[in-house]
């Protein structure tokens, strides 16, 4: 004499918090597309003709749209990941624990440094 409600597969639509969670998990979908594009890119480095064909593919408007989504997804992932990291691996220096804000700022500075490095490297510094 008891009942147990069955969790529907649409459970994550019921609450804002769960929708944000599913969005975080879904950031990997455009990432998968980007990974395939980049894999095709490194393959195309074997010949100049293949490289030009790859550039043609990358310049298609719908491809640029998905890659822009992948860029936004990577930022959203970074936002969530950097906040979770200090909770999973709290760092203690002596008696004091490093404040989460400091760890989050350090991680974002890492992301920005890599962007600056890539822009310099592939924007002519190579």
């Amino acid at each position, binding site marked *: 004499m008891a009942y147990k409600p069955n969790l529907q*597969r649409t459970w*994550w639509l019921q609450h804002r918090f769960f929708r944000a969670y*599913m969005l975080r*998990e*879904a*950031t*990997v979908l455009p*990432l*998968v597309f*980007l*990974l*395939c*594009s*980049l*894999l095709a*890119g*490194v*393959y195309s*480095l*074997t010949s*100049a003709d293949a*490289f*030009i064909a790859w*550039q043609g593919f*990358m*310049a298609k408007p719908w*491809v*640029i749209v998905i*890659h*822009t989504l*992948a*860029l936004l997804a*990577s*930022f959203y*992932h*970074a936002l969530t*990941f*950097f906040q979770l990291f200090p909770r999973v691996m709290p760092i203690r220096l002596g008696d004091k624990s490093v404040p989460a804000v400091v760890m989050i700022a350090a*991680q974002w500075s*890492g*992301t920005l440094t*890599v*962007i600056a*490095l*890539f*822009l310099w490297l*592939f*924007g*002519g510094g*190579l």
Partner: protein
Amino acid sequence: MSQRWQGLHLEPLWWGLFSAGGVCFAVFVPAAALVFGVLAPLGVIELNYLKLHVWYGSWWGLMFTGTVICLPAFHAAHRIRHGLHDLKVGGGCWSILICYGIAAIVSVSALWVWFNA
């Protein structure tokens, strides 16, 4: 001998790859998506084939492959596997085999390209 392996499974390995891939997705992938996915196709950045070819053949190319392709692939595989479970789809050995299997194929083929570059 039997006690040594009792209760062991591969979750720590998948989680380790997922975490490492998560760091790469947050730190290295934004730059790669911006440069190769958006700015270069829009013509803001001009990619030079010969210079790229030489650069990719160096150790930097291997680092690029690892941090931008291989580890994020395992990160994606792990999230897709658990996401399917969240949606009550699939599960068990098949999800594991398919998700990490594809990530492994992507990683090995990317590394193979680098070794032959």
